[in-house]
């Protein structure tokens, strides 16, 4: 048959429609949510397909469609929709697959002959299963049956696939069916178990699962038998089996009418258009916008009123046009999501789990290209949920959950993005397994693993080369892991968030921009050029007033590298101007450059999970920009991710935030931080992981690299050597209106100086870490300050070769000593006799301690609860109190503390020492709760904090703290503890 390509094309698109609709309808049937209309719709579609296939000469496809039609026919004649056995449904789904396969073949201009074996296979499967289900024989019509030689081939094929029938059965499948039918009718099936293995099983299953109650079955069988007696005349669809062509056209006509009636709402309202055409339309609309802009500019200079009016109209129409054209590219997420019904169903069947998928928000629209881009990641996530997330039925029963596992997919708009949330109610991520795997794959060390927080650990599954599946199943675990999901989503400007609760399930949130083409951006100026920064990368804008010397807003310089203190965290700064200058760096240093400015504009950006500040000349405006890719060869400039054409027709480059961060060498740090900051979700200031802490890394000498917990660092300063003065032998610097003693770490630690004194002299300034204790500042002089690094481990205090070293941490695979700053300050205090009162106190305290030993109960009987979120302080406190002989219990925050207290025996704890600023439940709230409880009205409580405003102190007293003390003042604390305990014991 000769067909024009166009008609064939139409046929194929129609096939696609039908297949899509079928798949949705069958999914409904599977869930048991189908009505008679659903069945009708399937039937009608198959009918149409059959007709058109034959018309086009694709007889094999037509034959399969016919088989489905016939198989579904009895269902249609029932009064109401009944459930269909899973076997039968499976055959339907398989037929649908083959239909799709055939359609694809036809699309490539191949014949349906190529799919003949597939068609034959499912054809018989379908006939067989349908026969079972209805207990009737669909075989008699000659037209149903392929020729004799086909049967031989088929039988071989089937035997190979173990799909059907005992080997000694007659060649004629027809007889097979008749036999089976009789057996079913005579209820003899069980006796013949050996012979008909597979079918028998399905019948048994069918009964067990009682999709059809016996009654229905029998009733239906009777009805059917009556019908088959009067076969030819009574069944309107049957005659055409033998004479497909003549009957077909008539039938097709009927069907068409039928279709029209039912689908009145749809017909004529949609037109098929090539995506290419839409893309071209969109480009043209874009160009029109630019022309419009030029016309507007021109007309605004003109005094011709008519021209002004016309250009205003042009303006409105163009904007509307652009908006509408944009919409043509939008497609409902459901186009992708609905396919999962099928995927989940197949997987569940394959691996023997019971899974139901619930989809909501399928109508949420997304740009076509983005939809394509998220398809694979989503599929991967859903497969993962099926394979690893959800448990086997018996496992679920044991966990007292319903056997049926659920996967929920929700799509919705949120803050200008589309969120797709995939959650399951499965077992959740397995902590131990992840750790084991990560160690095995050498992604982390066992040391790191020990101190890892839970959320942080979950991030491990996003690392390349990670897959928790114990064995590679057909479903997942093929080496492409969540890392691919993450990179793919990030590639389109989205991000992935993960949450998991052991035993409760796992949930993944994909945040996807609405469209790739249009991106909200912040425009900034550097020099004379404008640049665009994608809003998703922008965390906040900071304007620093450079005139005043206020310590909180000034920019710190460490060897020419600017840092800004953003709410207590050091934010590395990058000058856009310099980043873009490349090799043509001016002589002027950044420091000099910035000093000339009155205000400094900083855009705080997030690059792959870490933050940095970009210094720009001016922050201009926000705008929705249309991203144009750069020429291939310019893409290697990682500084730019694209370009855009602005309203005035000029071109602006789009900055690649990740690229800039890498180019500026901020990346090494990001690797350290990466895993955890992903979870921080853009707000890096929150301490998410209690066991991680920030360390300031510095060199004390050429070879001695050390670290100090950042929480103890007050400021970083550089003093010109000329500012260093001596008070006696003590180096001092005038600093903020007082005298700052400079402690040399080299001397204090008795380190050998590697560098000769001459070298020292060539440095014209010294780097000083300023710390504070007891309201006094101390400067610790170091060689050079390197970096601030997130450390996820405890300080290992097994090796301390000298006094003043707290222990070691491993940073970038290098052992780094952690300085005991408190000890240094203590020493300095003693050495310098800074505070006579303090000295007195010390003496007093000594005597006090003696007294305390006499009068209070033995320290080991005293149980102290410490609530402190910062790991470092927690350990310090514990160390201090343990050294006094107390029995110490720690809690990571107020919430944990109150839980510990509530589950304790009365009088178990004798003292509570609590921080004020803590996540979940802060110190004030903790104290309030403690005092509110009957059991702890008299429990002594000490607040240890850095919040030392009078208001805070008052509030502390108010909520019930007996003492409100400054952090790091060990002596004060010990005094307080003993006085409180003494009072308690009545001495």
């Amino acid at each position, binding site marked *: 048959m000769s067909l024009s390509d166009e008609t064939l094309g139409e046929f194929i698109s129609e096939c696609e429609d039908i297949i899509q609709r079928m798949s949705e309808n069958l999914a409904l049937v599977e869930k048991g949510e189908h009505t008679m209309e659903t069945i009708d719709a399937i039937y009608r579609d198959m009918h149409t397909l059959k007709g058109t296939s034959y018309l086009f000469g694709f007889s094999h496809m037509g034959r399969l469609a016919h088989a489905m039609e016939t198989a579904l026919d009895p269902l249609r004649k029932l009064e109401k929709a009944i459930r269909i056995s899973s076997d039968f449904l499976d055959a339907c789904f398989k037929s649908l697959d083959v239909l799709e396969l055939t359609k694809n073949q036809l699309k490539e201009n191949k014949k349906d002959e190529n799919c003949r074996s597939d068609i034959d296979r499912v054809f018989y499967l379908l006939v067989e299963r349908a026969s079972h289900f209805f207990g009737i024989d669909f075989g008699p019509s000659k037209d149903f049956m392929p020729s004799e030689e086909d049967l031989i081939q088929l039988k071989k094929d089937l035997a190979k696939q173990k799909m059907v029938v005992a080997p000694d059965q007659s060649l004629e499948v027809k007889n097979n069916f008749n036999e089976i039918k009789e057996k079913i009718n005579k209820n003899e099936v069980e006796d013949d178990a050996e012979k008909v293995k597979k079918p028998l099983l399905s019948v048994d299953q069918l009964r067990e699962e009682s999709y059809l109650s016996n009654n229905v079955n029998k009733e239906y069988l009777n009805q059917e038998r009556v019908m088959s007696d009067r076969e030819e005349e009574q069944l309107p669809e049957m005659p055409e089996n033998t004479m497909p062509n003549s009957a077909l056209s008539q039938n097709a006509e009927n069907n068409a009418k039928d279709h029209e009636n039912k689908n009145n709402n749809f017909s004529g309202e949609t037109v098929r258009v090539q995506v290419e055409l839409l893309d071209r339309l969109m*480009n043209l609309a*874009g*160009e029109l916008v*630019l022309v419009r802009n030029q016309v507007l500019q021109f007309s605004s200079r003109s005094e011709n009123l008519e021209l002004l009016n016309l250009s205003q109209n042009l303006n409105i129409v163009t904007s509307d046009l652009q908006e509408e054209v944009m919409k043509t590219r939008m497609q409902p997420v459901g186009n992708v999501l609905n396919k999962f019904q099928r995927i989940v169903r197949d997987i569940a069947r394959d691996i023997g789990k019971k899974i139901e998928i619930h989809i909501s928000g399928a109508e949420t629209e997304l740009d076509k290209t983005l939809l394509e881009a998220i398809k694979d990641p989503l599929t991967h996530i859903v497969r993962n949920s099926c394979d690893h997330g959800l448990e086997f039925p018996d496992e679920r029963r044991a966990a007292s959950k319903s056997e049926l596992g659920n996967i929920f997919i929700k799509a919705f708009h949120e803050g200008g993005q589309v969120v797709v949330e995939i959650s399951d109610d499965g077992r959740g991520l397995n902590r131990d397994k992840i750790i084991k795997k990560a160690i095995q794959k050498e992604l982390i060390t066992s040391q790191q693993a020990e101190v890892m927080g839970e959320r942080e650990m979950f991030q491990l599954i996003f690392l390349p080369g990670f897959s928790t599946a114990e064995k590679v199943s057909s479903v997942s675990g093929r080496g492409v892991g969540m890392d691919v999901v993450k990179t793919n989503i990030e590639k389109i400007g989205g991000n992935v968030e993960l949450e998991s609760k052991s035993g409760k399930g796992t949930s993944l949130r994909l945040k996807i921009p609405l469209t790739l083409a249009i991106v909200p951006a912040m425009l900034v100026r550097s020099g004379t*050029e404008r640049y665009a920064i994608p809003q998703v990368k922008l965390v906040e804008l900071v304007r620093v007033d450079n005139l005043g010397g206020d310590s909180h807003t000034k920019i710190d310089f460490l060897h020419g590298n600017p840092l800004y203190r953003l709410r207590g965290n050091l934010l590395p700064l990058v000058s856009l101007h310099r980043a*873009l*200058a*490349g090799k043509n760096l001016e002589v002027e240093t950044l420091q000099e450059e910035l000093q000339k400015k009155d205000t400094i504009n900083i855009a705080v950006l997030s690059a792959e999970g870490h933050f940095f500040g970009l210094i720009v000349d001016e922050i201009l405006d926000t705008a929705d920009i249309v991203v*144009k890719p*750069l*020429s*291939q*060869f*310019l893409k*290697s*400039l990682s*500084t*730019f991710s694209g*370009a855009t*054409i602005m309203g005035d*027709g*000029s*071109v*602006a*480059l789009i900055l690649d935030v990740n690229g800039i961060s890498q180019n500026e060498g901020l990346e090494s740090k990001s690797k350290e931080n990466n895993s955890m900051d992903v979870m921080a979700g853009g707000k890096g200031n929150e301490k998410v992981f209690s066991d991680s802490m920030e360390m300031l890394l510095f060199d004390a000498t050429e070879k001695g690299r050390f670290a100090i917990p950042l929480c103890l660092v007050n400021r970083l300063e550089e003093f010109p050597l000329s500012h260093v003065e001596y008070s006696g032998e003590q180096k001092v610097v005038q600093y903020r209106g007082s005298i700052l003693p400079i402690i040399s770490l080299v001397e204090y630690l008795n380190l050998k100086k590697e560098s000769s004194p001459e070298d020292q002299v060539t440095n014209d300034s010294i780097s000083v870490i300023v710390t504070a204790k007891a309201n006094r500042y101390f400067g610790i002089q170091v060689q050079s300050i390197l970096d601030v690094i997130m450390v996820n481990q405890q300080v290992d205090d097994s090796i301390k070769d000298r006094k003043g070293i707290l222990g070691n941490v491993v940073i970038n695979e290098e052992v780094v000593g952690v300085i005991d700053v408190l000890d240094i300050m203590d020493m300095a205090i003693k050495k310098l006799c800074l505070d006579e009162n303090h000295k007195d106190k010390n003496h007093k305290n000594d005597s006090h301690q003696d007294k305390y030993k006499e009068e209070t109960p033995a320290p080991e009987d005293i149980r102290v609860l410490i609530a402190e979120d910062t790991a470092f302080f927690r350990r310090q406190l514990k160390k201090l109190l343990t050294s006094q002989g107390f029995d110490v219990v720690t809690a990571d925050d107020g919430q944990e503390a109150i839980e510990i207290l509530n589950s304790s025996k009365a009088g178990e704890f004798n003292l509570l020492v609590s921080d004020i600023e803590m996540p979940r439940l802060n110190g004030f709230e903790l104290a309030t709760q403690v005092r509110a409880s009957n059991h702890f009205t008299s429990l002594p409580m000490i607040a240890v904090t850095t919040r030392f405003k009078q208001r805070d102190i008052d509030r502390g007293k108010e909520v019930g703290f007996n003492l409100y003390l400054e952090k790091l003042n060990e002596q004060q604390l010990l005094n307080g503890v003993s006085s409180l305990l003494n009072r308690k014991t009545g001495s």
Partner: protein
Amino acid sequence: MEAKNEKSNRQFATFYIGERLYGIDVQRVQEITRSMPMTRVPLAPSYVRGLINLRGQLATAIGVRDLFKTKDKDPESNMNVVCQVDGLLLALVVDRIGDVIEASQENFEFCPDTVSEHIKKYMDGVYKIANDLLSIIDIGKISHAIQKQVA
């Protein structure tokens, strides 16, 4: 007669860099534009003059002078020869535009060895025409070279 002509004669869009005449196969030239406002691309090689908005499409302006490493400076006004090649939209920045010249194959010579290597690598050869020599630039070679250099 006509058929013969088509075979042996080729048409070239010509332009000048300084006083030297260059030609590009007319079929590869999309359009000629006046000098247009362009956006500098920091960090790009010096011959990338910037990005041009060509009716909504981005064209990358390539300074032929920089590419050829000729020492003299661009004149104040210039023209763009826009070519679409390998999916790139390149705008060659040239001094001024010449006529479209039809050259006969019998006047073709391969590039003489004396031509500077910087230029030679972008050239197909030379046509001897009345009063002048026409150096033929292969835009494909230019696109190839810049993609290789940056990558």
